[in-house]
């Protein structure tokens, strides 16, 4: 019998370890266009201690370990590129502590966004976390491991900026805490201790995050979405600049798509407007719609497309079924807001070349400090030709991001390489040193952010 498998069974129990073809198949694929990469084992630990044991085992046996949350990142980031153990973290899903007055919650990293949203809604309806637009089965840990952003990105930035503390199992097996929790205080801040957190944005290649203290924000009672529409994409940067100056919206997203036809070439800005009272709502609307936007309405270049639409939380996405084909993948990028028009135009060109109706979107991060701009490509899983087109479109888009002065967000290995090829060589060497220092045996999600020179 396989010794690693035996050891895994011993650590997590028989039900939660596998080396059977069915599990290996299942964990070899993600939802996007990536080619399958088979793990040799699958394990689903329940505690940080179990994770630790698995890491120690992996070091001893020199087998890779690839952490997996919801597996929703689409870019093959949690596929075992070099085999090894696919570590499904979703059993680590407890809410450990919620400090209402200090507005933070400590959770296990494998908890789903949906569970946290439902919990807050039920027990603390006046608190919320910044929820990504991903399917709610996506985990909190996976999201911050790739610098995700959610529906509070405009006021508060990246989700990974909302981390107050972490517990991490290092690639060498030590369980480490970061932030105020490391000195035995509450989990309320990451600063002002020296910055040694080297885990955010690393796709799990520097350690496995097991606990996270996440900032919560005031959740207003009334939550509605208004839409503003323009035809000229060139107006979007100015509009976003003006709207972020007013600062009355919770989430600002500019988007357009080829389908349905009425969207085609019409740029929509959705504004989440929230308040505890009707007066607060109207106050915010007045500042936004009758203030900064009035000029556009009166000269006929912009219009109020809808008001008071319900906001879904969690969001439901049907993007994968556009082609009745069960698949889509997108390139995300962090871009200056000024790049919107070019991103849209060039993206629509790529889509047209690949016969995929274009779908683009830019979510404002901070006071328009940047936006997460994404290009989605739908494909039909049963039709390899459409998968190939989508994959090519994704690659072209990765290059486009860099050409337009952007940074690829949650890049697949292809995009990681594009960026590392351009990266300042000292920075690159620093990355390499960090990785080697933390992960001397190179077992953690190998292939990701790997500096080869």
């Amino acid at each position, binding site marked *: 019998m396989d010794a690693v498998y035996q050891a895994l069974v011993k650590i997590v129990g028989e*039900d*939660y370890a*596998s080396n*059977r*073809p*069915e*599990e290996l*198949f*299942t*964990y070899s*694929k993600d*939802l996007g266009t990536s080619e399958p990469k088979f793990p040799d084992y*699958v394990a*689903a630990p329940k505690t940080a201690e179990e994770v630790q044991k698995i890491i120690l085992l992996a070091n001893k046996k020199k087998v890779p370990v690839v952490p997996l949350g*919801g*597996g*929703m990142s689409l870019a093959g980031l949690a596929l075992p590129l070099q085999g090894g153990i696919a570590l*499904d973290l*979703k*059993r680590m*899903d407890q809410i450990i502590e919620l400090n209402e007055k200090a507005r933070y919650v400590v959770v296990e990293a494998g908890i*789903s966004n*949906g*569970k946290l*949203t*439902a919990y807050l809604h*039920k027990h603390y309806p006046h608190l919320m976390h910044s929820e990504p637009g991903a*399917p*709610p*089965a996506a985990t909190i840990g996976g999201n911050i491991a790739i610098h995700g952003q959610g529906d509070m990105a405009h006021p508060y930035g990246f989700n990974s900026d909302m981390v107050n503390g972490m517990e991490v199992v290092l690639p060498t097996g030590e369980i480490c805490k970061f932030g105020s929790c490391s000195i035995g205080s509450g989990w309320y801040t990451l600063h002002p201790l020296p910055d040694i957190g080297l885990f955010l944005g690393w796709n799990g290649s520097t350690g496995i995050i097991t606990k996270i203290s996440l900032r919560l924000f005031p959740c207003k009672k009334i939550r509605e979405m208004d839409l503003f529409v323009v035809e000229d994409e060139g107006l979007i940067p100015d509009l976003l600049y003006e709207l972020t100056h007013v600062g009355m919206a919770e989430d600002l997203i500019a988007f357009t798509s080829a389908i349905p036809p009425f969207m085609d070439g019409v740029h929509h800005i959705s504004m989440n407007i929230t308040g505890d009272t009707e007066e607060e709502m109207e106050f915010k609307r007045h500042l936004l719609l009758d203030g900064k936007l009035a000029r556009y309405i009166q000269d006929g270049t912009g219009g109020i497309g809808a008001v008071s639409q319900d906001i879904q939380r*969690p969001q*439901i*996405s*049907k993007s*994968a*079924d556009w082609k*009745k*084909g*069960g*698949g*889509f993948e997108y390139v995300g990028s962090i871009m200056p807001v000024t790049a919107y028009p070019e991103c849209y135009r060039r993206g629509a060109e790529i889509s047209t070349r690949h016969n995929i109706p274009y779908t683009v979107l830019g979510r404002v991060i901070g006071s328009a400090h940047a936006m997460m701009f994404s290009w989605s490509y739908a494909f*039909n*899983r*049963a039709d390899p030709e459409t998968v190939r087109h989508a994959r090519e479109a994704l690659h072209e888009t990765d290059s486009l991001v860099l050409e337009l002065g952007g940074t690829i967000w949650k890049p697949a290995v292809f995009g990681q390489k594009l960026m590392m090829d351009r990266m300042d060589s000292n920075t690159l060497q620093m990355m390499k040193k960090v990785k080697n220092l933390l992960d001397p045996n190179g077992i953690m999600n190998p292939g990701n952010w790997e500096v080869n020179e």
Partner: protein
Amino acid sequence: MTRTAYKYNDIIHRCFRCGYCKFPTNWDDVNNCPAYARFRLESYSAGGRLWLIRAWVNGELEWTEHLAKIVYACAACKNCVEKCPLSFSDEIVNMVIAAKNEMVELGLLPAPVKSFLKNIQLHGNPYGISAKKRSQWMEGTRVETYSNQEFLYYVGCEGSYDTRAQQAARALGELLLKAGVSFGVLGKKEITDGNEVGMMGEDGLLEWVVEKNIKQFKELGVKKIITLSPHSYNAFKSIYPKFDGKFEVFHYTQILSDLMKKRKLSDLKEIQKKVTFHDPCFLGRWNKDYDSPRNVLKSLKGITLVEMERNKKGALCCGGGGGNFYTDILGGSEDSPARIRAREAADTGAEILAVACPNCLTMLEDAVKAERLDDKLIVQDISEILAI
């Protein structure tokens, strides 16, 4: 080998594996697919199962006992159908059943599934107990056999054979007598309704069962049927008409709810108890009746009805559907759905966990014991609560 005959080759690739289907209606947690709740590996989630089925029918994966176990772990509870936002969602369970059809055809089945089906074939029930003993449950009651009464009271296999479920079968019999309902039972002549046979993909056997039942019902002049089990209710209501067996079918809670409305069951005792109700999938999500059982409970004096976090459309299945009450693929762990459900019921502070299905009754009673909650919480069928 590819399975070209597989009925859903044109849509099975449309599952994105996005996992909405893991949740209940209120997004409480990812464990509302009972099979996924039990094993927590992606392969056991609805999406994982569909992807595996697709790989198998495409010839990417060979059949193994484990693959069959994953497929048969689906309790046919329809939570995925409820939650999947994509337009093919109505077909999810059918896609799983169709895979079972293929496995049946090839004779590649997990051992307990095989014996379930074999027992039905030989004895008309999954337990493999002689058909002669089918009427034992009614000994000592005044329940009569069917001969032209208004209703046929169809008891089903669990109610006929399982000692715990027999109590519910008797309680319901007594209640109907008390209310003056004109009904009779088939006794030894009753055979399985076929619902689980269908859910397990044995279409040939299903046809045989259905036709046999229809023939018998027609010969006896049955027009209206009351069922103890929502599984039977579903079979008679949704499967039999396809075989030209059209009867007026009622789940017993629908009859009771009506009787109580008409005050024909008025001298029921007052029960000062807090009660929570567990929705059976085949009455709830399959047939959209969430009210009848609740109406019955609410019209009982003294009872305070409290809801579990997950209820109605969002209820967690006890894990007994699709033959799992027998095959027990989902048993044996504190993450067995019935045990999760038992804990959830206890969390409401209820003293009675009310059910309206003999499957749920046995599954949850065992779970409450395994959880050592039996000093706080008792599991009772609604028929039993009324008969107290």
